[in-house]
């Protein structure tokens, strides 16, 4: 880190008129040397259709996504939908809401899948498709990061992202 900063300093030390740029370049070089964190949005939003007035606790959202309950608190059917596992919000949701690491979640579903006791929620490949589906049917329950969310769906719960 210091090596790169000193290199940039040497390179720019002759360019008087570039003094301002020297500052910003060295700062960005400094920052680029820090360990990269995956870009996660500030918040995770649990979403459903606009015409679904349901109130649901985070603990129940977790149990729905773990296949332990399949009804909303009011008794209506609920169908959970997962994001693509490649999306960083998938792991984020697992950690924050389901309280499992990605490998613990895989082991959890492997136990069920290979003994015929259950299947994980359906995976929707793109966020556009997900938002489209969720907005159309109030049985669908899903989650998305605040960057990707729109207002065609109802934001049921907003979960602040804690760095953990």
């Amino acid at each position, binding site marked *: 880190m210091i090596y790169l900063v000193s290199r940039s300093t040497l390179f720019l030390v002759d360019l008087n008129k570039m003094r301002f740029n020297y500052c910003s370049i060295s700062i960005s070089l400094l920052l680029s040397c820090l360990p990269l964190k995956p870009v996660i949005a500030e918040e995770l939003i649990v979403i459903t259709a606009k015409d679904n007035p349901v109130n649901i606790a985070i603990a129940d959202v977790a149990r729905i996504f773990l296949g332990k309950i399949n009804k909303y608190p009011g008794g209506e059917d609920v169908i959970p939908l997962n994001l693509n596992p490649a999306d960083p919000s998938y792991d984020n949701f697992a950690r924050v809401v389901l309280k499992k690491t990605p490998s613990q979640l895989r082991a959890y579903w*492997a136990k069920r899948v290979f003994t*015929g006791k259950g299947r994980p929620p359906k995976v929707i490949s793109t966020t556009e498709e997900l938002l489209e589906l969720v907005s159309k049917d109030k049985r669908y329950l899903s989650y998305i990061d605040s960057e990707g969310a729109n207002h065609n769906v109802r934001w049921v719960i907003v979960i602040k992202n804690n760095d953990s």
Partner: protein
Amino acid sequence: MGLIDWCKGHILQIYSRGFLLAGLVKFLLAYMFLIGAAKSHAALSHNINGYGTIGVGYLNDDSVNESDGVPHNLFDRGVQYDVDSRFGIQGTVAHDNGLGFTGQLVALSSEDYDVDLEWSYLHFNYANNLTIRAGRLRRPLYLHSDYRRIGYIYPWARLPAEIYSDDIRFASSIDGLDIIYQFNVSQWDFNAEIYYGGTSGRDITFGEGYTTRDDYGLVLDVGNGLVFFRLGYHRSPRVEIEPLESTQALFDGLTFAGFSEVASDLSISDLDVEFYDFATGITYGSWFVNAEIVNYRTGGGLIPDDASWYINGGKRFGRFTTHISFSERRRRIKDTFSPPIHAQIEQLTPLAGNPVVDATIAGLTGLAQGVKSAVDDVKSKHQSYTLGLRYDFNKPMSLKFEYQQIHDKDNKLRNDLFSVTFDFIFGGSK
């Protein structure tokens, strides 16, 4: 034998084995047919999921395995690649209405990769609370029994041998019916499972083959995400074991000599076996502790009773998990045979002096000694201490390093087992 030679040998074995090829081909054809049906029918979905383990182990000495005639594990002395390695593949076709079919093929290196259809069942899911399965299923005897093939799920390189061994293979699967009812009471999730069926197979520790009828069991488990409890009771009331040639010769000899009652008492066919299981565990943040205790009673005969338990605890550090376990097995045969033999000897002793009587007494004494020796041989106490380290990759794969000390407490023997296993799972829904 080097690793390269082992790989070559096993790959050749796999591809040249008629069974494996035929089995795979049949499975794939059936599956493709079902997928074809699924694709043309919007309400059908299909999945392929699979798993595997590649493992190598080094056992420094097999004295414990040899000590009581029934091996503690499948290892021989030295380095082995063909104990833990195994692969499985599962195909499911399901309709939106909840009805589906699943088949799972398994190939174990310890069985020369002979492909076995371990699961093959119709399933119906009603309202997500009720699951009914009919066909061939693995029996949910103990906590990890029905998913014991999938190494990725549990922290150990292999499940504690004191409980999860092949000695009770006659109780590892059923062809029958299984019902699971799932419900919750506030934060507690309950699962109640009940099943009924029978099975048959070959290659069992104590005999040539086995057939069981009217097997049943009940499992109740409850958890709240932090702590769980599991209670199970299982029974195999009519287990028929085809005795090994040597054992059959012994029974024939006894019957011929006029001891048919003793022979039938000693007989290992027609058993009524009961299994009891209790398991519990806590997961608190990155810490976890689990324990399980089991008991099975074979209701007499030459097959022993076992009382076993283990405790396992560990902590996760990011992608690493370290854990430590202690497990124990106490095995014994309930000796109901010696008393009648001794009673007979007592009856005949006053008549001693007559050469025929003397010969009979000598024969009976020899028999009593033989029975006592067999009972003493089987009586054993084994303990294992295990230390393990697991690394989880970004993908669904894990690498485990494990050191295990196996003790035969009665004979004061100790063996060390080192293992490295690589586990993976794959597949998804469509």
